[in-house]
């Protein structure tokens, strides 16, 4: 009995899950403290709004799943790149490109949703491949290229949309010129199927979340069950060593970034093919891509854990919208940031736990010592 208990705690996954839960708890406490400071009389209702809105009725739950889908995709994108030793800060640009390609396929070319989805994937993949190519062949840090191409992508998309009259809502009878056309007007076949889910989960619900879960599983299989995934990870740990072992490091860096980009691209496609969202032409980067970073970090880049962290982030964001007007909804961002920052402490705590267990184990069974698997 005691042995199985200790085995449970010895597993790295358990320790990091405990760490994440502790940081989440601490982050929420900080959030409550902020609510108390800024408006004590509404603090308790604020907290309950934040924590329980997502479950209050089933249409809110539908909204949680609706925003969780693109978050999960960008989280997977960032996490996948992390696993292969790259920092994909370009998820925003890839997401933008994915949305653009998907919408062009759906509106300009009147193609059905699955083709538009593939087009979105392609757009994201191209925008992801670029930092990969620059890193592999020109020795330019992927973070810099990705930042540059976030902006280039945004401006290129805005420029193209302004020169494609058919894409804009005004072409289809709406007043606004700053948004892309509503898919319900332009091409209902490009809207993601709802499979009748919208009847119980409200208007927002579609199959997007299931596509995202499927992608998470596929990425998990690639990373942990295939030689290809192993090679990608090996490149991330030590580029020179994997080159020595006969792995084509340049090809793998480009492939990692391409796959990461494709994931963000699907995220953009899922969001804008929902039929409820319209792409707005603005001069600031889309935040959905950047929100993928905390989602990936909360899940320690594990694809399956990313499902839950995306759900969590989406859940408290939906709750956060209900904080207004008494509080700014950005309190949610503070909470998430604090959770990520605290997860650094959690690493420290994990280290201490692991050390204690290791020492104990050394004392009773020195042969059973196994290396800590750091992924």
């Amino acid at each position: 009995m005691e042995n199985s208990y200790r085995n449970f705690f010895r597993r790295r996954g358990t320790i990091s899950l405990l760490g994440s839960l502790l940081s989440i708890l601490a982050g929420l406490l900080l959030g409550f403290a902020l609510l108390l400071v800024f408006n004590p009389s509404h603090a308790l209702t604020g907290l309950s709004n934040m924590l329980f809105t997502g479950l209050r009725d089933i249409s809110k739950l539908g909204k949680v799943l609706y925003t969780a889908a693109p978050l999960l995709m960008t989280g997977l994108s960032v996490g996948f790149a992390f696993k292969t030793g790259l920092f994909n800060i370009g998820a925003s640009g890839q997401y933008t490109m994915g949305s653009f390609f998907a919408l062009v396929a759906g509106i300009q070319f009147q193609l059905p949703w699955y083709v538009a989805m593939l087009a979105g994937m392609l757009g994201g993949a191209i925008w992801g491949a670029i930092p990969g190519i620059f890193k592999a062949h020109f020795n330019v840090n992927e973070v810099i290229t990705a930042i540059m191409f976030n902006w280039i992508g945004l401006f290129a998309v805005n420029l193209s949309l302004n020169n494609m009259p058919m894409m804009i809502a005004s072409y289809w009878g709406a007043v606004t010129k700053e948004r892309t056309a509503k898919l319900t007007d332009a091409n209902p076949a490009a809207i993601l199927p709802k499979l009748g889910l919208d009847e119980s989960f409200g208007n927002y619900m579609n199959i997007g979340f299931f596509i995202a879960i499927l992608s998470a599983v596929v990425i998990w299989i690639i990373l942990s069950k295939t030689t290809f995934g192993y090679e990608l990870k090996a490149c991330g740990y030590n580029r020179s060593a994997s080159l020595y072992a006969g792995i084509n490091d340049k090809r793998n860096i480009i492939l990692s970034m391409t796959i990461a980009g494709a994931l963000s691209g699907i995220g953009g496609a899922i969001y804008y093919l929902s039929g409820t969202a319209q792409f707005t032409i603005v001069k600031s980067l889309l935040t959905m891509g950047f929100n993928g970073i905390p989602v990936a970090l909360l899940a320690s880049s594990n694809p399956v854990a990313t499902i839950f962290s995306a759900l969590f982030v989406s859940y408290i964001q939906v709750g956060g919208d209900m904080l207004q007007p008494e509080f700014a909804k950005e309190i949610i961002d503070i909470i998430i940031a604090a959770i990520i920052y605290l997860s650094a402490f959690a690493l420290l705590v994990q280290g201490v736990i692991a050390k204690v267990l290791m020492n104990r184990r050394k004392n009773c069974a020195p042969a059973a010592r196994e290396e800590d698997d750091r992924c």
Partner: protein
Amino acid sequence: MLILADILSSTVLFAVPLLLVALGGMFSERSGIINIALEGIMIVGALLSCLFLRAMDLSGWGAQHAQLAVFFAILIAGAAGALFSMLLAFASVHLKANQTIGGTALNMLAPAFAIVLTWAIQGQGQTTIAIPKWVRITSALTQDNFFTRFIFKSLYLTTPLAALLLVSAIVILYKTKLGLRLRACGEHPQAADSVGVNVYRMRYIGVCFSGILGGIGGLAFTVAAGSGFQSQVAGYGFLALAVMIFGNWKPLNILGASLFFAFFKILGSYSGSIPFLPDFKNVKSSEYIYLMLPYIVTMIVLVLTSKKSRAPKAEGVPYDKSGR
């Protein structure tokens, strides 16, 4: 000629925040800490200094002692940035956390905190802190000739201060014991430690410098942008990172890189009044072409110079005494 003066003047105005923040990033990376939190540091510096300027404006003291108030605002920006950057230093030096993760958390924290605080102070939905008019340095001289136009078109106290900080950065980095030790910690911390340099302390100092410069850079950006503080710095913290790499982690190269980038950034807004630039008449919203320009040009230059690019060797690696 006057238009040239305008362009150069705006170029300098926008190069100043890039220069300051990139120099900050340089100090941090030279000591071995990747400072991706520059964006957040800028926001915190700009937030507190703009709140100070607002308070001075309301009390009326600022209008009477304009540049003294701006000077205090700069001090506040630097102090705020330094304090905020200590969060990064603590996580990455003492907790040995992943530096990108800590930085990302701070980047997320800063704008959210700024919005929440601005709301709390200015009232619901009031997300912009206006910059008082007296912040700009004006002159009675006419702006009809090249030099007065170039200097006084848009002059803020941050600009001469940036020049001063650049010189001090060069002196500190290359001519003092501190600078030598700092650089050693970024290249080979074990070797530095073996001769008695306190690596932890050096890294704290490096990050602290980046906080001071980043905070002041945040204020410099906000006055340059001209539309008040809106809880964001438009990605300038990240651009400064690019400028730093572009400048090869060296102060003078960083100066060149920031002027270069700022020039291409400004070019777009003057494209209509410069006769030999194409105006893309057949393309709708052609301003986006010029908006893309600085990023594309930077990428090209990065590719051309990447062979010579050399990052500090130990950056991003937490220092572990037992790993010697």
